[in-house]
C-alpha cells in the first residue's frame, strides 16, 4: 500500500537560490557551493531580514556567489567589493552588507581596501573563500598560495611567503576573525551567524578545495581528498594567536574563532565625532532612513 504524499520538506538552501540560474558553474568537488549552504543556514538561524540584506562580491569563482543567491546582489569589479559595500552601507545604514569573495580578489588587488575597511571597522561581514589560488583565470599564484606549490605563473614552484589572512585582518583592526574549512560546515554556519550579530568588520576565512587547478597541479587529489585532508589535519584552537595560524601545503590547519572583540564601528565613531564637534547642528541622516529620502532630492516620491 502506498500513500502519495507531497514532499513536505524543501532543501533549506533552495529558497535562497536563483533557480533560474541553476546549475552553477563551479567544478565538481569545488567547495564554494558548500559555503553557500552554510551561509543559507546562517541566514535561517539568525532570522535576518532578507529584504535589508545585500551581498557584494568581486571577480573570481567565489565572486559568482552573488549571482546565485536571491538577495540584492552586486557583482562588482576585481578587488573592489569592499569599497562598493562601504558606499552601500553608508548610504543606507539599515542594510546588512555581506562581502562574499575569494582570496585573490580580497587580498591581492583588493588588499588595500581590505586593510582600510578593517582599520575603519566598517560594519561589513566578509566571507573570504580561500582556495589558495586564482581559480577562475586558470590557476595562477595568489598571495595565499603556500610555498613550493605549482601554479600556472609559478611553473617551477612558488617561493613567495604567503599571507596569513587572519593575522593581516586582526592587525588591521577587525573585530571578528575566524577561519574554518569547507569540512567544518556547522562551525562555519555558526560563525556567519555570529558575524551577523557583530557590529564592525567581521572576517571569516574558509579554506576550500580547488580540485581542477590547485589540487590537480599539486597532485593533492580531488575535492574529496582535500576535504579529508581538512578533516585530518585541522585543529580547532579558539583564540589562537593569529601570527601562529599560517598555512602550508600539507601541514596543520589551525581553525577556530581567533578574534572576537568590541570596538566602535565606523558609523558610531563618525556620529560621536560629529555630535561632539557640531552638537545640535549635526544632521544625522540615519534618522531619516539613510540617504534614501524623498526630500533629499533623490527620489521623487517615496517609492519604497
Amino acid at each position, binding site marked *: 500500500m502506498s500513500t502519495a504524499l507531497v514532499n513536505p520538506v524543501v532543501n533549506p538552501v533552495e529558497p535562497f537560490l*536563483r533557480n*533560474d*540560474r541553476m546549475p552553477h558553474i563551479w567544478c565538481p568537488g569545488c567547495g564554494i557551493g558548500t559555503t553557500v549552504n552554510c551561509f543559507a543556514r546562517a541566514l535561517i538561524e539568525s532570522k535576518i531580514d*532578507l*529584504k*535589508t540584506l*545585500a551581498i*557584494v562580491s568581486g571577480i573570481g569563482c567565489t565572486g559568482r556567489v*552573488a*549571482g546565485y543567491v*536571491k*538577495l*540584492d*546582489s*552586486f*557583482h*562588482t*569589479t576585481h*578587488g*573592489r567589493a569592499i*569599497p*562598493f*559595500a*562601504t*558606499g*552601500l*552601507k*553608508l*548610504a*543606507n545604514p*539599515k*542594510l546588512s552588507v555581506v562581502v562574499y569573495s575569494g582570496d585573490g580578489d580580497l587580498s591581492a588587488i583588493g588588499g*588595500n*581596501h581590505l586593510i*582600510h575597511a578593517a582599520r575603519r571597522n566598517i560594519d561589513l561581514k566578509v566571507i573570504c573563500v580561500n582556495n589558495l589560488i586564482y581559480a577562475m583565470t586558470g590557476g595562477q599564484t595568489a598571495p595565499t598560495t603556500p610555498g613550493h606549490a605549482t601554479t600556472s605563473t609559478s611553473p617551477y614552484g612558488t617561493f613567495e611567503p604567503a599571507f596569513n589572512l587572519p593575522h593581516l585582518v586582526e592587525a588591521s583592526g577587525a573585530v571578528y576573525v575566524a577561519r574554518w574549512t569547507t569540512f567544518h560546515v556547522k562551525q562555519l554556519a555558526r560563525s556567519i551567524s555570529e558575524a551577523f550579530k557583530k557590529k564592525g568588520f567581521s572576517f571569516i576565512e574558509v579554506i576550500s578545495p580547488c580540485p581542477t587547478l590547485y589540487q590537480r597541479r599539486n597532485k593533492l587529489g580531488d575535492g574529496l581528498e582535500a576535504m579529508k585532508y581538512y578533516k585530518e589535519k585541522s585543529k580547532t584552537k579558539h583564540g589562537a594567536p593569529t601570527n601562529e595560524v599560517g598555512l602550508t601545503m600539507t601541514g596543520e590547519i589551525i581553525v577556530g574563532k581567533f578574534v572576537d572583540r568590541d570596538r566602535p564601528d565606523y558609523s558610531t565613531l*563618525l556620529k560621536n565625532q*560629529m555630535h561632539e564637534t*557640531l552638537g545640535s*547642528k*549635526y*544632521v*544625522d*541622516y540615519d534618522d*531619516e532612513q*539613510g*540617504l*534614501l*529620502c524623498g*526630500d*533629499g*532630492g*533623490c*527620489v*521623487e516620491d517615496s*517609492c*519604497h
Partner: protein
Amino acid sequence: MKADPRGVLTGTHFLDGDHACCEGALAAGARFASGYPITPSTEVVERFAQRVPVVGGCFIQMEDELAASITLQGAVWGGAKAFTVTSGPGFSLMMEHIGYAAMTETPCVFVDVQRGGPSTGLPTLPSQGDMMQARWGSHGDYEIIALCPNSPQECFDLTIKAFNLAEEFRLPVMFMMDECVGHMTEKVVIPPADQIEVTPRKHTHKSVEDYLPYGTNGDLVPEMAHAGEGYKFHMTGLTHDERGYPNMTPKMQQKLVTRLQNKVRIAAERLTMFEEEGTENADVIVVSYGITSRVAQRAIEMARGQGLKVGKLRLIVAWPFPDAKIRELAARTKAFVVPELNLGQMSREVERAAGGKAKTILVPHAGGTVHNPEDILTAIQEAAR
C-alpha cells in the same frame, strides 16, 4: 522636481570654481561623496566634508581613487545621489569604474579638474588634456556625457545639470573643469531652491514580480531600484540580460552595448548645449570650451575690431560631440579655429564632423597657463585669409 532647500546656499557669493561645484552638487541633491585628495580638485570635497554633516549626508575619504570611484556607486545603489572629484592621475585610476558605471547604468558624476599632464605633470596648473580620455578612457564601447564650465557660476549651474543628466540617462557624467576655472574666484549667484530644477531618480513603480532591472521601453533607460527595497535584484559588470543576469553571448553583447550607446545617441540632439554667437555670416568660427573660451572671447573681439567676420561656438556639452551643429556651420564658413589647452583633442572632432567642408585650424597649447589671445588672433587672421 525642485531642489531640497537644505542643500541650497541661496545668496550671492564670491567663490572659486571648486567651491561652486560643491555647492552645485549639494543643490542638485548629492548627499554622498567619496574622494581622494588630488590637486587642484581637493577643495571640492573639502567643502563637501564641511557642508554635508549640517546638510545631512556623508563624505568619506577613501584610501585611493580606485576605491573612491566605486564607493560612490555603492552609495548610489543604496539610494543616494553621489559623486567624486579628481584630476588627471586620479581620473586615469578611475577609468575602470567609469566603465562599470556605464555598464551597470549607475547614475553618478565624476568631476575632473584638469591639470597639466601626462603623468604627474603640472599639479597646480591648468590644461584641457583629458577631453578624449573623458570619452574613451575606459575599455569597450560605452557613452558618457561631458560638460565644460568656463566660470565659477557655471561650475555651480552646470554641476546641477550634470546630476540631472546622470539621473535622466543612468550613466556617469564627466564634469570637465580645469585648474583655472577651479581656482578662479568670481561672483556666484545661488538662487532659491524653488528656482532650481532637479531630476529625481528614475525609480521603478513596478511590483517585485514584474520588475526587470534592465528592461526598457522607448527611451532605452531602465528603471532603477535600490538595495533594501525587497526587489532582490542582481547587478553585474558582465554582459547581462534584462534580468541583470550574466549572459555572455555575442547576441546579448550586441543587444546590450548598442542599447547603451543608443540611449545617448538618440537623444544627442536635445542633449547638445553650446553658446553660439555671430556665426551667421562668419568666415571663421572659433570653437572652444572651458577656460580657453574666455581667452578666445578676447581674441574674437580683437579680430572683429579689425573688421574680420568671426563667429563663436562655445561647447558646453562636449560629449556627445555636437556633430550636427559643426556640420551645419561647416557648410557656410571657411574655417574653424580651435584653441585648446592640449595638443589637439576636440579639434579632431571638429575636423571629423566638418567632413572636409571647412578647414580646421588647431591652436594648441601644452598647458600650464592659458593661451595668449594674440596667438588665437593670429590663427583667426590666417584662417580668414
